[in-house]
């Protein structure tokens, strides 16, 4: 293959026809409070793991909604399951359980 000094940029468009929605569908079934999440980010603001790493629970819940699941397993490993996010959530979303259910879904669908 010829090297022209540049590569073809990857398309960042999210194609909902081809999105892998198995994880979000599994989590929504097992932990229905995800449906009332505002995506306000209070969970991320208070997250201890997020203070020391680039872990971002708000981003993760957003990404699984659109089927962006690359590196998801490594991302959720950063969570310490302390549950502070659940305490500050204005809607009472069981965020801690969402992480556990994502982990389960990865084992079912991607391992």
């Amino acid at each position, binding site marked *: *293959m010829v090297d022209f000094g*540049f590569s073809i940029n990857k398309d960042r468009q999210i194609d909902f026809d081809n999105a892998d929605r198995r994880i979000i569908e599994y989590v929504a079934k097992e932990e229905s409070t995800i449906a009332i999440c505002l995506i306000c980010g209070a969970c991320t603001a208070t997250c201890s793991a997020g203070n020391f790493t680039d872990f971002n629970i708000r981003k993760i819940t957003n990404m699984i909604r659109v089927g962006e699941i690359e590196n998801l397993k490594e991302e959720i490993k950063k969570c310490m399951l302390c549950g502070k996010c659940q305490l500050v959530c204005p809607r009472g979303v069981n965020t801690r359980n969402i992480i556990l259910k994502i982990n389960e879904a990865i084992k079912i669908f991607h391992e």
Partner: protein
Amino acid sequence: MKLEGKKAIWKDYQKEIADDKYFYVRSCVRQNFFPGSETAFLKILRDELKKDVYEHPCHTTCTGIGYHGDVVPFDTAMTVVARQFALMTESGYENLVPSCITSFGLYTEILETWHHFPETENKIREYLKKATGREFKIPKNLAHASDVIFKFRKEIAAKAKHKLINKNTGESLKVVEHIGCHYSKMFPSKGVGGAEYPYVLTGMIEEWGGEIIDYPERRHCCGFGFRQYLVQANRGYSIACSKKKFDSMEPYKPDMIITNCPGCPMFLDRWQYTIKEMEGKTYGQNGEGIPVFTYEEVAGLVLGYDPWDLGLQMHQTDCEPVLDKMGVGYDKSKKRELIINNE
């Protein structure tokens, strides 16, 4: 919706195109990319349609590429364009016909600016007077060269020697039309069909027997976009735009692509070769690329001109599959000779 209602609305999407006495201004890049196109335009208008077309030897670049590349200030661009208007006025013409879509967009932008801010027009008149001693009149009519061919598409169809029809199957050729972004995306009322339903190329293709493909990324940019191409490291973004269009049109099996902009045929043509070299992927049938044409080249083919006189030997993606389907005769060895002589 009732048909009368549709017709009434469609009237709002039309533009006035002068029918004779054109002051033609060439593009600075097209003569390198597709050198036969502008010659074909002049030949069609002068010889076939018997129109009065004048081009001035002192015409220069409009500075559009520099303006959109952020290296030419707007005041400078306006003064250079004012000089083009002065050349037109001195030559006794009132209908300006730019060959380039970016020039068309820039002229439109400047005329709109002057319409809303007359003090800016006065300032530019002063600049031009001080710099060159010239004065100018605002063009009575501004139409892109593709508008002019669109206006006379029926006359061209009446003289057609070949149609956009597969002579072996009798079916219409499947055509992708690609409109330059600066044609009507900036000022929708200045293009035939506006930004939503640009009809300038579709009208020609339908009149000449082709079938339009309506694919999802039909209105996506070709990827030229000036800045993302001018810097080599950014070209991955440019080629990604073209690839997105090719991926989108591929399932519809297009026979050809027709464009009305200097940059679009360049990039849709050359990037097909680049994608093939980088990823080994081709988008046409039988492992070939999809031939890309300018509207003048297609008009020339329809009128029976020799493909090599139209400059088709300069295309990176071979045009022969379309010529074979249309039944256009050509001399294979002559193409090779022309390419070697150019080298």
